[in-house]
């Protein structure tokens, strides 16, 4: 049974308990929720400390691309019931949650784990949002490395 699709950019913190309720129907037996947060200490690659991240979005296009990802999820995993893709913008400190991707289904073996992972991976490829990192060394824009191809 197809459920809710929630795609939005917001400055507010997402209430995960409330979201769980919004994504659950009588037929729901499994919800996978991914939350990304500001990492204060990075150990991999170039180790450094982060004091703040500032996010900005190209809003109408960002929400349009989130809907595209939700449609891609439904095409790949038809048993998914509800989908939430929510990105926050503004200034955030280490430990602050910044993004949530959640999928629900009747059972855990419907692809619901893979669907949530696909959602956050695709968000980092095609949703026009950027973050500026502030460290003790100064500030700089973080850039991804994905170049969209025709048809995306």
């Amino acid at each position, binding site marked *: 049974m197809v459920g809710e699709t929630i795609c939005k950019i917001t400055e507010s913190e997402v209430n995960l308990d409330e979201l769980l309720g919004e994504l659950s129907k009588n037929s729901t037996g499994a919800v996978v929720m991914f939350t*990304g947060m500001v990492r204060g200490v990075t150990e991999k690659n170039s180790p450094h400390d982060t004091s703040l991240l500032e*996010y*900005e*979005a*190209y809003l*109408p*296009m*960002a929400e*349009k691309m989130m809907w595209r990802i939700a449609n891609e999820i439904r095409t790949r995993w038809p048993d998914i019931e509800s989908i939430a893709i929510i*990105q926050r913008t503004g200034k955030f400190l280490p430990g602050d949650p*910044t*993004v949530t991707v959640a999928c629900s289904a009747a059972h855990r073996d419907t692809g619901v784990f893979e669907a949530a992972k696909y959602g*956050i991976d695709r*968000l*980092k*490829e*095609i*949703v*026009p*949002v*950027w*973050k*500026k990192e502030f460290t003790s060394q100064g500030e700089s*824009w*973080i*850039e*991804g*490395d*994905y*170049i*969209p191809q*025709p048809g*995306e």
Partner: protein
Amino acid sequence: MKKVTLLFFATLRDITGERRMIKTIPDDMQISGLKEMLVDEFPGLKEIMASVIVSLDHEFAFDNSSIPVDAEIALFPPVSGG
């Protein structure tokens, strides 16, 4: 000639010093021509233009995309949300 709105995000905004501009461009100009025009106006863009992403009315656009009248064109670096 036709009018288009240009939007710049993240590093592109820092380099151009502009958030939003209205430009008049030739009728037959494609995205590749627009990029060349912008590199002439903002030489700082030259180095990064190969990895700049362009959208046209909220859809990804490519060098050979043609530009409609009153288009909203955004230029930005590879995204880094999450």
